[in-house]
């Protein structure tokens, strides 16, 4: 500092000033804990798992992957998981969107969002237990339907696809809804008013104004909700048929690791799981790039 003030040359900048011009100053050091954390709990385990997956118990480097993709009992888990995660995410968004359109106009938004967030805090296991009682053969749902004479014998809604489906919707919906709500309420209400005064009916306002502005946000909401649903494990075990229709990919990984004690195979399955998710997320995000992604305000101020 002293050298700067005492030197006659004003063109000379101190190291601190030059670093500051590049956006590096004392505050930059605050990212260090985050960097260390990321390295320790994400990057390192990932690389460790990746290497482990190429060191199978027997066979060559790719033996685990060859085994996975040649055994239908294993590779079918990808489809089984997708068959759960994709419809669950789509339906969550399809329900969240109209609700968000209504909620954004409400004055007691906070109360409603609090109620909606509660299921997240309950945890999957509690929801699964509840659903077992509620949707089970002796549960209220079947008994009520039988009482009013809609059905003769209990409907089977647990220990199969639909049990997991319901549980995923219940635990995933609040998250999807909150994301959707933030995107919907981020759109300037004046845009819809402008569309209405210039002759657009409610469907046209949605189709030509709201929808194109929402697509980028909804894609993000889809990706995040999808990744959550794709990792389904507890409800697939508790509410599903983990040996058959809901044998999802995480169950396969679990069995490899803790029933066959083949950590290398389990790592390979985890890598395949990550690759499937990444593939879907990346392709959705590149489609998203085709849409308008700028400000959703109608003008300045």
């Amino acid at each position, binding site marked *: 500092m002293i050298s700067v003030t005492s030197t006659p040359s004003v063109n000379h900048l101190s190291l601190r000033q030059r670093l500051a011009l590049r956006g590096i100053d004392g505050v930059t050091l605050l990212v260090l804990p985050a960097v260390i954390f990321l390295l320790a709990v994400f990057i390192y385990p990932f690389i460790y798992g990746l290497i482990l997956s190429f060191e199978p118990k027997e066979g060559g480097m790719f033996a685990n992957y060859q085994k996975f993709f040649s055994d239908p009992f294993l590779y079918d888990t990808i489809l089984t998981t997708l068959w759960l995660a994709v419809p669950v995410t789509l339906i969550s968004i399809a329900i969240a969107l109209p609700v968000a359109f209504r909620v954004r106009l409400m004055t007691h938004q906070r109360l409603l969002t609090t109620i909606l967030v509660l299921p997240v805090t309950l945890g999957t296991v509690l929801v699964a237990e509840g659903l077992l009682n509620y949707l089970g053969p002796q549960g209220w749902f079947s008994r009520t339907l039988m009482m009013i004479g809609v059905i003769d014998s209990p409907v089977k809604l647990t220990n199969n696809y639909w049990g997991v489906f319901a549980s995923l919707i219940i635990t995933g919906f609040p998250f999807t809804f909150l994301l959707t709500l933030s995107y919907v309420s981020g759109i*300037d209400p*004046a*845009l819809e*008013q*402008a*569309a*209405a*005064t*210039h*002759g*657009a*009916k409610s469907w*046209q306002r949605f189709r*030509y*104004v709201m929808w*194109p*502005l929402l697509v980028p946000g909804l894609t993000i909401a889809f990706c995040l909700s999808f990744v959550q649903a794709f990792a389904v494990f507890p409800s697939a075990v508790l509410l599903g048929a983990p040996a058959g229709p809901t044998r999802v990919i995480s169950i396969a990984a679990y069995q490899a690791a803790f029933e066959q004690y083949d950590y290398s195979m389990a790592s390979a399955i985890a890598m395949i799981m990550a690759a499937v998710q990444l593939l879907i997320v990346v392709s959705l995000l590149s489609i998203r790039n085709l*849409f*308008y992604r*700028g*400000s*959703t*305000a*109608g*003008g*300045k*101020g």
Partner: protein
Amino acid sequence: MLLASSPFKEIRLDRMSRAFGSHNALKDVSLSIRKGEFIALLGPSGCGKSTALNCIAGLLSTTGGGIFIDDKRIDTLKPEDRGFGMVFQNYALFPHMTVRQNIGFGLKMRRVPKAEAEKRIEEALNLVRLQGQGHKLPGQLSGGQQQRVAIARAIVIEPPLVLMDEPLSNLDAKLRLEMRAEIRRIHNQLGATTIYVTHDQDEALSLADRVVVLRDGEIRQVGVPSDLYERPDHLDVAEFMGYRNRLTGKVIAVDGDKTSIAVGASTLSGIARDTLKVGDTAVVAARADDVVAGTKSGTTVEAVVETIEYRGREFVGTARTAEGLELVFHAPQTAALGSAIWLSVDPARALAFAA
């Protein structure tokens, strides 16, 4: 001329009211607007002018009264069925559409054939002087250009009525003057019936054929700009029209509408806007430019200069009288702060109201 407006004689607001809970934002607003007229709704913030505009547009429902185009009642229609054009304060352009798509939005909703729509968009672009900008997104335009697009979008559908909600308030002072002239030019060219909401009296006076002054949800005065400017009916309208100086005193002589009022030690005269008789308490209201610093006489008020600033041709300052009243005045030359001056009020231009 391709762009025109649909045929009708008048738009009538019949005791239009709007209440929010127990608060009446609009009370029995009645007004009839001739085709082609440019109406300004003028008033301070919270006076109900935007509420009135939103009710006419259909974005707010009315809680009383009706809106008619000739004999057709329209306040029961949804906004999309009223067929009006509207220019919003923040422009409300669709950010994902190009300028052309924005302007053509109303035509597309009305399923106007493509060839005709293209021609009308082109003409609207020419009218707002945005030739060659049609392919841009609104985000690539300046504020003034965005507002031109918003105007083009509203007029291209040839609406019976164009509604403008403080369209210039987001622009800087220079652009505001330019756009004001532009709006006037477009109105002269198209003759579209327009309701223009503003809190800026200059804008209202320079643009409108008739100005409607609103206060607390009620119409205080309707008139041509010169009427409002020179002969406001009420003291609050006068205040709003720039009569910043108000001096309270006793009426000492009445001669027709010429009224003499004793204010402190001096006697001021003005034109009575209320019925006043000798002995009444009255307020003399005068614009800053009608209060001029000069030499002492029987009709001048003595005051002490508090601020003075140079305004090009002359000086404008504030001064305080012995009674503690603040006056805004014009002066041909500067005066020292704290010095006493004598202010004369133009008796032909000052107004007298009952206090």
